[in-house]
Structure formats: C-alpha cells, structure tokens
C-alpha cells in the first residue's frame, strides 16, 4: 500500500522531553488520528513533519520524498492548521490570504471566498479582532482552499462548538472522498476521531504505543472487570494497563477475544473506547 508519510526512527531531544525513535506510516487516502496526553509529543511530531523543528536523527518522507531536500515542493501540497494559529494580528484577513495565495499553485480563490462566508468570517476584519474559535476557522479556511493532498491538523477542533465541529467533520469526510487526499489530525476529543478516523496512532511520552486501524482497535481492545484479582493467577494476553478499584479490578487488554476465553466466567468484559484506552495506559504507566 502506498504511504503519504513515512517516518523512520525519528528522534528529537529537548531539555524536558525526547521523542524516542518514532517510526510509523500514514497510508495514502486515509484519515490518521493522533491521540495522546498533553506533552506526549503530538505537536512536536507535526512540527517536525513541517520542518519547523530540526530533527536530531531519523528520516521523514512525504509523498516518498525527503521532507528537507524537496521542502518547498512538498509544502505546496500540504495544508496545515496549528493548535494556536499565529498570523500577523494587525493585518486584515483578506490581505493575509492574498499574501499567501501566490505560494500555492493550486490556490482556488473562489473556494476560499466560499469557505469564508460558510464559516461566517468577515474578510475586512483584522486578525486580532477574532475570537479563538474564529481564528481556528480562518486557519482551516486557508488550509482547505488550495486543495492540499496532505492535511496536517494540530487540534483543529479545540475551542470550537459541537455544532461547528460536526459540520467540520462532515466537510472533512467530503474531502476524504477523494482517494488522493490524506489527513493527519491530533485531537483530545476522541468522539470526533471515532466519527471520522480510519487509523489511530497513540503517542505517549514520546513513544508510539500503537498505530493501527480504528476498527480493529475497537474490536480487539477491551476491558475486563472482575471482583477477584486476576493478575496473580492467570496470565492475561495483551495486558496493557489495569486499575484496582474498591469493587475489584479493571484490566485493559489489547486482545479481548482470547482474554475472554482464558478468563473465568465470573468476570465481565466490555469494549474499550479510545478514552478508556488512554486512561488505562496512563494508569499502567503510573503502576510500572
């Protein structure tokens, strides 16, 4: 299968935090959701792909090309939205757009204007006059109006109201009908992901826990609840994390089917949502 983005043991060291030899691929034509707790390295990863941050080692290939050698060519096919949109605050939206437009060969002014009034953004307002939500919308507007093949979004939905989020997700899924397009977006609102994403990558403390199709996560991962402490007796397959409550114990496993067969009948097992998975992984990490 063709990959839009290939990342091979990518490493970046900061004072407080390191991204430890991450490697994963984004298959072409799919939506990849990037989740993980604050400071896990989501933003760092996206900034590395955009070459805003210099990597210490490893390789990033976008559309099969090295992202530094073919920087400008690659970037002209990328639409980006960052968690805090930074534009020149005392410049009007339309002039900002007009300044950016010539950089993109496939910039579509009509589409841009259409989006602007769809999102009910005033063309003649200065950027600093916008609320946070509107800033996000404007940033999205720019990202979507030069039909990019790869769309990178760093928490595009944070600070947007549910109604607009819904519309946005619909819009995204429209865009994704085109098989050529690929999307990577990080978010903390996992319900959004469960609606749109095809693949999920969970990153935690600068390491990738898993990167696999959403469906098989939702099928295979599960929580086992039991009064008795199962851990000492039986060996649970694919144990990820557990929590001892005063009722008994809750265990997250990445292989619920075999777990069900192995574990005695007095325990209940249920499907895990992404939120549960994140919760347990954090817990497991605190236990270890």
């Amino acid at each position, binding site marked *: 299968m063709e990959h839009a983005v290939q990342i091979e043991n990518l490493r970046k060291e900061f004072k407080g935090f390191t991204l430890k030899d991450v490697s994963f691929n984004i298959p072409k034509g799919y939506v990849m959701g990037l989740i993980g707790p604050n400071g896990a390295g989501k933003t760092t990863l996206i900034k590395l792909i955009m070459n805003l941050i210099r990597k210490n080692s490893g390789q990033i290939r976008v559309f099969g090309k090295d992202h530094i050698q073919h*920087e*400008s060519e690659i970037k002209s096919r990328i639409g*980006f939205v960052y968690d805090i949109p*930074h534009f020149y605050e005392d410049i009007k939206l339309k002039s900002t757009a007009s*300044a950016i437009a010539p950089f993109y060969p496939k910039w579509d002014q009509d589409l841009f204007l259409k989006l602007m009034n769809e999102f009910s953004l005033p063309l003649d307002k200065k950027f600093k006059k916008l609320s946070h939500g509107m800033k996000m919308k404007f940033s999205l507007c720019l990202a979507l109006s030069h039909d990019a093949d790869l769309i990178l979004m760093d928490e595009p939905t944070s600070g947007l109201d549910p109604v607009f989020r819904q519309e946005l997700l619909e819009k995204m899924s429209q865009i994704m009908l085109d098989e050529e397009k690929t999307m990577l977006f990080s978010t903390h609102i996992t319900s959004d992901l469960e609606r749109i994403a095809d693949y999920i990558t969970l990153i935690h403390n600068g390491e990738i826990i898993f990167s696999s199709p959403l469906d098989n996560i939702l099928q295979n991962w599960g929580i086992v609840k039991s009064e008795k402490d199962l851990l000492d007796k039986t060996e649970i397959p694919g144990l990820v994390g557990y929590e001892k409550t005063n009722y008994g114990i809750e265990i997250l496993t990445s292989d619920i089917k075999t777990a069900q067969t192995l574990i005695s009948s007095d325990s209940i097992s249920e499907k895990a949502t992404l939120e549960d998975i994140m919760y347990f992984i954090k817990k497991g990490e605190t236990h270890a």
Partner: protein
Amino acid sequence: MLKHIRRELIFNQTQLYIFAGYILVFWIWIVWQNISPRISLVFLSFVLPLFCAASFQAREEKFKAWTLNCSLPTNRNTLILARLITSWSLMIAALIVGILYSALFQKNHSILYQFIQLKYFLVFLLFTSLFLVFLFPFVIRFGLSGVLIGLVVLQILGIITLVLTRASGSKGNFLHTMIDSIINFMKFLLNHPSTFFYVTVLIFSVAVLNIFTLKFSQFLFARRDF
C-alpha cells in the same frame, strides 16, 4: 522572489505607513534645517536598517508568525534573502524620495547633487551595509530581547572606554571622539578621488558585506526551532 517581497510588504503594512511618515518628516527636517548631506547620510544609514530589517524581524517575533512563514512552501534561506532584498529596496526608495524632495523644494539642490554622484551613493550603501552586518544577524539570533542585551553590552563597553579615557587622561568625550572618527572616515571616503580602482573597491566591499550578512543570517535562522 516577487511573491516573497509582496508577502513581506503586505504583512508589514502598518510598519510601512509609520516608516513612510517618518521618512517624509525626516527629509523635510533635513531640508528645512539645511543639514549637510553628509550628516544626513550618516543619519540615514543608521535609521533605515533599524526601520526596515529590524522591525520586520521584530514583528515576526511579536506575532510568532514564523510558524506561518516557515510553513509556506519555501525554504528558510529564501525567506531571509527575501527579507534582505525587501529592506534594501525600501531603503533605496527612501533615498529616492529624499532626492526628489530636494530636487523639487530645496533651493540649492545639495542633497540631489550629492546623492546622484556614484561615489557618494556607494558610500551611503557602504555605511548602511556596515550597520546591517551587525544588526540583521543580531536580531535574527536574539530577537527583541537580544536588542536589550545588545544595549547592556554597549553600556558596559561605553563605561570601560570612559574609565580608560579618564585613566589615560586624554581629553574629550569618548562618544564624541567616536562620532568624530566616523565623520573623519567618511570624509576620507568622500574626498578620495573617485578613480576606477576606488569605485570598484567600494562596490566590492558593499557586495562582500551584504553576502556575509545574508549567509550568516541564513546560517543562524536555519538553526532555530519554532
């Protein structure tokens, strides 16, 4: 490249208005007070870089807009090149405004006569480039806070020299002597007969200075994480 310059100009509109206003006032003042073109040259070569190059950098930092600029489909070297070219073109424009002004309103068209001389023009370029060499990379590396640091350094240097002058018992204000030396240097440059060799040297040095500024700034800018 054009699109880059265009971007710079649009993003720094507000700055440009202030700049334009300042320049007009400046020339009016020069002509009105009938200040000698030489002084005005020194003024210009210090003020213009501050207004163009430095302020563009400052704005980019203030709004954290480098995330935007560096995400555009270009590489960072081009961004720096564009910034340098834009500031140069602005500075030249400011000079032209002055020349026109003197041509129209000044009785003895001293500024006009001075600046249309090749030698004089080149000296102006030289001075400006000299200042840019210090300013441009400095702002890129240290940003707004860097300017403050720069001031501190300057003060300490100043104090040291003051103490030295005091100790050596030589008379006169140090800053004054410094300014004098600058003036003398300029006088030397201007009074030197404009032989072919001399002109080529000037041109060469200007070119070298600017290339150095460019390369050094690019070197610094490439090593930044945003």
